[in-house]
């Protein structure tokens, strides 16, 4: 084979790999991006029906209830302006607490309940998921996130 043909072969092969890779990536990207919405956005019907997304905020104090004989729990997530009821079946992460920040992934039911498939753990007691902190901050511009976090820690 002549060097030029060979080089051409390499270029074609390289482009083919890149093409396949980009197709895979774009396809996977499209179907697997998970968007984040705050309770206010969900209440304003900005969130999609039937497609998974994430919500974040604070677990409203006193909102956690358990169904007897199953692992299903109900709680409400709030950004202090709006509140979304959430149901979840499974084990809650260690640091899930009322009054604390939380991020949940799932779909919105027709009745307005968020059916979580995953409730995300925090790794540190003082730490609040930024997405959750952001939602609260946006809903409550006059109060800084920092004080919110401290007050929620103090009220525990």
């Amino acid at each position, binding site marked *: *084979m002549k*060097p030029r043909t*060979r080089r051409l*072969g*390499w270029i074609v*092969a*390289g482009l083919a*790999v*890149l093409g*396949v*890779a980009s197709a*895979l*990536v774009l*396809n*996977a*990207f499209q*179907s*697997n*991006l*998970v*968007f*984040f919405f705050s309770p206010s956005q969900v209440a304003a019907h900005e969130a999609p029906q039937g497609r998974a997304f*994430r919500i974040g905020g604070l677990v409203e104090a006193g909102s956690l209830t*358990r169904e007897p*004989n*199953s*692992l299903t729990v109900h709680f409400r997530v709030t950004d202090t302006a709006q509140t979304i009821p959430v149901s979840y*079946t*499974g*084990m*809650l992460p*260690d*640091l899930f607490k009322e009054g604390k920040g939380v991020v949940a*992934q799932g779909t919105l039911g027709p009745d307005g309940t968020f059916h979580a498939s995953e409730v995300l*753990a925090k*790794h*540190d*007691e003082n*730490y609040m*998921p*930024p*997405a959750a902190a*952001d939602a609260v901050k946006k809903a409550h511009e006059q109060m800084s996130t920092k004080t919110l976090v401290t007050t929620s820690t103090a009220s525990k």
Partner: protein
Amino acid sequence: MIPELGHFALILALLVAIAQGTLPLIGAATDEPRLLALARPTARAQFALVVIAWVCLAASFMGNDFSVLNVATNSNSELPLRYRFAATWGSHEGSMLLWTLMLAGWTFAVSVFSRHLPPVLLARVISVMGLVSVGFLAFVLFTSNPFERLVPAAAEGRDLNPLLQDPGMVIHPPMLYMGYVGFSVAFAFALAALLGGRLDATWARWSRPWTTVAWAFLTIGIALGSGWAYYTLGWGGWWFWDPVENASFMPWLTGTALIHSLAVTEKRGAFKSWTVLLAILAFSLSLLGTFLVRSGVLTSVHAFASDPTRGVFILSFLAVVIGGSLALFASRAAKVGLGAAFSMISRESMLLANNVLLIVAMGSVLLGTLYPLFLDALNLGKISVGPPYFDSVFFPLMAPALFLMGVGPIARWSRAPVPELWTRLRWALGVAVVAALIVPALLGRWSPLVAFGLFLAFWIFASTFETLRGRLASSAQRGLAAKLRANSASYYGMLLAHLGVGVFVVGVTLVKGYEVERDVKLDPGETVTVGGYDFRFVGAVPGPGPNYRAVTGTFEVRKDGELLQTLAPEKRIYNASGQPMTIAAIDVGIFGDRYVSLGEPVAKNQDIAGAWAIRIYLKPFIDWIWGGAFLMALGGFMAVSDRRYRLAIRRRTAAVWTGVRGGAPAD
């Protein structure tokens, strides 16, 4: 006094590093032997000073000196001694000091093990590493001083994050950093070669063992982190495609490409530019990983309270290092040349294809990791890219790479006739196909994905065996022992690492295919059957711990009525922080683990004597995942033990820079 001593040593280290990073480079440019000769002593002095600083910090932690802010926020007098030691790198400041220590250590190692390197090259290598040191020392001193005092001193420390109070904390970070930072040596060699304008087989031979060692440490570090997440978080997963995991995985993928590309450059003089580029890329990704993890842009167990100046500092440093080295590469790459030619089907072409696949896979991980950060930074909304993305992109890209692993070592350099490949590999292909058809059925349920994964694994096993068989058959030696001895340690290292990949693939395939996960509510005395095993929840009782209160559950595991094991998972509440922690109980076995962890009491008033939410997992062959990783790392260490590297060094010094050595034996 001790913290001030450490702080002072660190300042001196910065000054020495500045000398180390500039004077030998000037010496190399002006041919001034007195400046060249400074490389070694400055590297060693810098190392000694950083060691002193680090020992001072460790002493402050172990001696509970709560007048040091870092100690007061990350330790506690109740903390067991080994975790007080590990807390040295449990904070942002401490872990950056560890990074710096590792860098100084690698530089020191280069200064010790390179007696036969030409002085100009050595001076450049050590200088480049010195410049990186300057960046990190300045970062530690100006933005993350680990010795900052707390006035007045705290009476008690705030404690180390309970998640980090684990034996994993003692070894995972040092191993990972050994790997991360080790790529700086390959990077420094690449830049030194570019500066000198002479890239040849000698350069590759020099940086090869360093790169392999760094890669082996990184492999161990990642495997340890994965194993730690498996047993400590109570989720039973071994890989989450978490950005922090990706941050360590990207340098690994690039490093894997690099060690293969270096082999080609050393043996055949080919891929020269590509190898240099990979060396720059591997270390750049290590820095990027450090930036991602340390700047606070990511949220995970590794991210500490973020300080914007730190992020800006690392980002600028990143831009200088990556931009500078790529600019140097661009200006010199034309001189480097492409190297020897080879045919479409040859060992070179397969290694190149493997390289391209690894780098494309790395790119897809990079995209999935950075895209959400970009969107967020540009205020275009918050998104997350979950495991399904990575799964659906990564596995299709890796499958052909795994297949090529079987062909590459058998293919001849320069040109590999297809009929010969077919003759040698057809039985390996047969073994793999038969295994793929039969083994899943034996394990209970046949599924295409499991069959495909096992096909790849058995293909790797069988073809690796064929590689060795062919090599022994064509050996001129008599007798099996002599034939075995005739091959080099690096050859066996390669085989072992490839077998490790096969073992890893078996683990991943069978866990993904056959794992059973059940979350159940159990009353004391109740039994649940999972995957043929009866798990009886005896009850949960409270008990004390060294620095926590625990509730311990008891589970009896039976199969066909026979008691196999009693498992005791724990739920802990740490005294200092009040933070809860789940400790899973795992019955580890070579054919699979039985995994039980406690959720929370679900009876009224959270009565611990009542019912609990319980997680029960069966994880077939999961330990093969880490076993495979350790085999890979072992293969790496074995390859480095090759006598060739030591002998070649001496033999070659005289003939250094004489150009490409062609026609080396195919090992």
